[in-house]
């Protein structure tokens, strides 16, 4: 997420201003460049033809023919393969290594181990702080030879006592995970408003619960990887990344070379979800070996490494107290959370949504972040908010039961029009419309009839149970969501009109599979008055493209989109200035549509190509940039999801039958692609609810399910009927395209909605995900006493 403050008239006439930017919970001051001009916002009723259209994904053809090139399948002449060796112990030291036998394996060219990497890469120091940490690497002619070399490598380790859980890390005699201590600086982080004690005293009903969420693994199907090739003192890196410029900066710093000597390319990537936000061990290794050997080097993580050392959503323990009046009005929200981060990470904890989602005057959260001896966390789709929503929304559902109140009515009762955390308005907020439309499409009000009908074998096909087993129970649940999605500067774009009137949108951003290529082309075509088929987005190359930030925080459309629009408006202005003399009119007399320039109110026209052809080799280049966000406004995306499940009370197996999802993300540039994002988030949320949980061996700290067989992500057989859609309208306050971010929000409410439906089905609360059969049976057992 990104939020800036203070755009004021005092800035006019200045090129650079300082602004506060927030990215996924972290706030920093940044100097940003003000655009030369800002186009007027596209209003809700502005007639747009290409923006808002369900056009096919523009790179789909490459994807369905196998021609899209991903980092993992870049193959260069003479390319070598690097395979990383990893620690079998969770803490300790490399005692010894002997690479003689490994170097003797046919095809093995080079070995790096303790002490062989530049200090700034922090690789191969000999000190170990988690199982699976890189301790060496083999470089060979083929992947198979590298694997044989790895087997021949002789390494021994000294294992030291470790702390892989929160409880172990905060114990009085705990082994030190990091030299400065086992708690993150500033832990516990405390934030609040109002008077909690007064809020609890004013409550008619108080509930207290403890919720637990698991470590979730990103599990992108394309593992992390890089291919590096040197040419004299310059290195080119193909990297599967969400941030090409960030990788460039990190590689330059680690290798001690200039950024201008590092080129990072990413044309296609096989999923990121937050885990691919920078350079990693594989990147440095590919670059180092390529420099040592003078040949290109590919280093792609094994699946085991991808599942055990490429980032994760950290686990949480959330102790929640809610106080409310009899009518449901919240009087107090209290959270105390423990978060074991791994050996590295940042403060992306569960607290934020507790401050933001409801109109409660008294809120207090306390988060304690601990370093533990396991692989470091990385942002994972809606970091903190997905975890926090499981706690907050599960507690809201428990409160509704306690009050004997409809969970949806409880949420409507506590709807807030303004952002109470920051005491300011939202740029737009259609959460109530999400409640209304979601409930209507789900049939929330008639769920009891549906439950009755589902028990009747003669029920209509639409409600008939998937199983006729008598032990199957039907349940219904819902949860809400909020996620800050403003985007912001800096982001630049250019729109280039070639002399055949083909049009290139140039931006140094990335398409993770989200549809950025398509969205930017749609925005530019709309602004330029061009046919979409004439427009192509060129992205993913630091050497040739203007800067854009990481594709994280649902930021790409609201950040790069306005820059692309401005660049297209600028190119249009230049094109019309060039065309005006050809018609003997003023530029203001001209209009553009379908790649044609028309003299207003006449039948005189020329195609773009006729104009550019007569210009010869003059190249029209429009420039655009993203301006700061508006003053004193919070920009966020909202939503509500409704779940229907079946639970077999004999086996504990949960089957999700239906999810209805209503979200408000401002203007939707391409509804088909946006709905794909909703479905994807919901399906990852379903995995989080039902299956996904990293398991570490208590005795060794080694991960026991570092694959896709024992770490289970949803398959096609697990998918319910999903009806995911958008309500709301263009957000003209947020930015001049009217679009907010939308990719992360849908994962947020899915797990608590499913857990609520399971609780509804079995009459027992579920306080820990994933909702595995043994946890469901355990909840039933506890309930029976």
């Amino acid at each position, binding site marked *: 997420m990104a939020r800036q403050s203070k755009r004021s008239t005092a800035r006019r006439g200045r090129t650079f201003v300082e602004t506060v930017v927030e990215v996924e919970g972290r706030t920093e001051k940044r100097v940003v460049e003000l655009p030369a001009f800002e186009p007027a916002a596209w209003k809700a009723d502005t007639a747009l033809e290409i923006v808002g259209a369900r056009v096919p994904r523009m790179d*789909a053809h490459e994807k369905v023919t196998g021609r899209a090139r991903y980092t993992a399948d870049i193959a260069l002449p003479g390319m070598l393969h690097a395979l990383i060796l990893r620690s079998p112990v969770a803490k300790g030291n490399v005692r010894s290594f002997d690479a003689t036998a490994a170097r003797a394996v046919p095809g093995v060219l080079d070995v790096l181990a303790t002490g062989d990497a530049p200090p700034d890469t922090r690789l191969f120091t000999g000190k170990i702080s988690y199982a699976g940490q890189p301790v060496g690497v083999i470089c060979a002619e083929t992947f198979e030879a590298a694997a044989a070399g790895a087997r021949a490598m002789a390494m021994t380790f000294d294992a030291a006592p470790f702390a892989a859980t929160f409880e172990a890390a905060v114990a009085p005699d705990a082994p030190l995970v990091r030299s400065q201590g086992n708690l993150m600086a500033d832990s516990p982080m405390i934030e609040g408003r109002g008077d909690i004690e007064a809020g609890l005293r004013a409550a008619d009903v108080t509930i207290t619960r403890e919720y637990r969420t698991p470590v979730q693994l990103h599990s992108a199907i394309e593992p992390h990887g890089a291919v590096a090739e040197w040419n004299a003192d310059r290195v080119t890196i193909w990297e599967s990344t969400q941030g090409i410029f960030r990788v460039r900066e990190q590689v330059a710093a680690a290798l001690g070379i200039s950024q201008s000597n590092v080129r990072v390319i990413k044309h296609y990537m096989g*999923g990121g979800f937050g885990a691919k936000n920078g350079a990693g061990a594989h990147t440095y290794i590919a670059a180092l070996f390529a420099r040592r050997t003078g040949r290109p080097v590919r280093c792609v993580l094994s699946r085991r490494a991808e599942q055990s050392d490429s980032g994760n959503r950290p686990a949480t323990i959330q102790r929640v107290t809610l106080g409310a009046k009899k009518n449901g009005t919240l009087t107090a929200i209290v959270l105390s959370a423990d978060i074991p981060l791994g050996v590295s990470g940042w403060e992306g904890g569960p607290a934020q949504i507790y401050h933001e989602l409801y109109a409660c005057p008294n809120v207090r959260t306390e988060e304690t972040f601990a370093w533990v001896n396991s692989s470091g966390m990385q942002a994972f789709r809606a970091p903190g908010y997905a975890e926090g929503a499981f706690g907050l929304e599960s507690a809201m559902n428990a409160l509704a039961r306690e009050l004997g109140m409809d969970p949806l009515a409880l949420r409507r009762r506590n709807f807030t029009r303004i952002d109470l955390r920051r005491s300011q308005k939202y740029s737009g907020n259609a959460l109530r419309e999400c409640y209304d439309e979601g409930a209507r499409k789900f049939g929330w009000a008639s769920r009891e009839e549906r439950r009755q009908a589902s028990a009747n074998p003669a029920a209509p096909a639409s409600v008939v149970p998937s199983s006729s087993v008598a032990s199957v129970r039907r349940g219904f649940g819902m949860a809400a969501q909020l996620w800050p999605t403003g985007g912001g500067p800096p982001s630049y774009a250019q729109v280039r009109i070639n002399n055949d009137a083909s049009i290139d949108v140039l931006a140094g951003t990335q398409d993770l*599979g989200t549809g950025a290529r398509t969205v930017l082309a749609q925005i530019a075509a709309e602004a330029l008055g061009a046919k979409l*088929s004439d427009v192509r987005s060129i992205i993913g190359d630091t050497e040739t493209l203007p800067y854009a930030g990481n594709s994280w925080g649902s930021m790409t459309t609201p950040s790069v989109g306005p820059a692309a629009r401005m660049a297209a408006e600028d190119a249009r202005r230049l094109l019309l200035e060039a065309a005006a003399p050809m018609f003997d009119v003023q530029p203001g007399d001209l209009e553009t549509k379908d790649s044609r320039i028309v003299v207003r109110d006449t039948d005189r026209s020329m195609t773009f190509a006729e104009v550019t052809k007569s210009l010869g080799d003059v190249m029209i280049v429009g420039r655009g940039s993203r301006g700061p966000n508006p003053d004193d406004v919070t920009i966020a995306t909202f939503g509500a999801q409704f779940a229907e499940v079946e639970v077999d009370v004999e086996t504990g197996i949960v089957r999700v039958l239906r999810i209805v999802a209503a979200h408000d993300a401002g203007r939707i540039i391409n509804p088909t692609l946006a709905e794909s994002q909703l479905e994807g988030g919901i*399906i990852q949320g379903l995995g989080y609810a039902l299956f996904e949980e990293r398991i570490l061996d208590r005795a060794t700290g080694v991960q026991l399910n570092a694959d896709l067989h024992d770490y289970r992500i949803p*398959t096609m057989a697990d*998918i319910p009927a999903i009806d995911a859609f958008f309500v709301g309208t263009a957000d003209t306050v947020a930015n001049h395209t009217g679009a907010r971010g939308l990719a992360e929000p849908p994962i947020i409410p899915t797990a608590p909605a499913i857990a609520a439906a399971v609780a509804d089905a079995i009459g027992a609360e579920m306080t820990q995900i994933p909702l595995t059969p043994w946890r469901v049976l355990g909840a039933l057992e506890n309930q029976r006493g």
Partner: protein
Amino acid sequence: MRLTVNGRDHEIAPAPGERLLTLLNDRLHLPGTKFGCGHGECGACTVLLNNRLAYSCIVLAEACDSATVTTIEGLASAGKLAPLQRAFIAHDAAQCGYCTPGQLVAATHLLARNAAPDEAEIREAMSGNLCRCGTYPKIVTAIAAASRGDFKNMSSETDE
């Protein structure tokens, strides 16, 4: 060793331990078949091997003597997209696209055995191909549309 890939014959000497996936990607320059796990868990490397589904990451190349292999690059014929490929484009059945080659090969195999699968049959047959983007609902829709020969949502712009 002789090997027919997408209708073309190859004489090739497999390296010891070489996997069919590596041979296709790095030696026959067919990068469309993807590496996802190396253990036959994800389906990204799915190919047709003698008209049966195979995970090419766990097939030894030297076991493929005289075999016929179809990869994602072999689904279009004479530059014309197969109905399934057109349906995947029309119904947005590829997000990041990395699992898409395996999905399309598995779907091709399904429709060859069962020209008109119902939704449950599609889900069952396709459940060996993982998609982390969660494109599953769109993939089901695309396969059902292709099986019906329903191209009404398909833009002619996307044809080759």
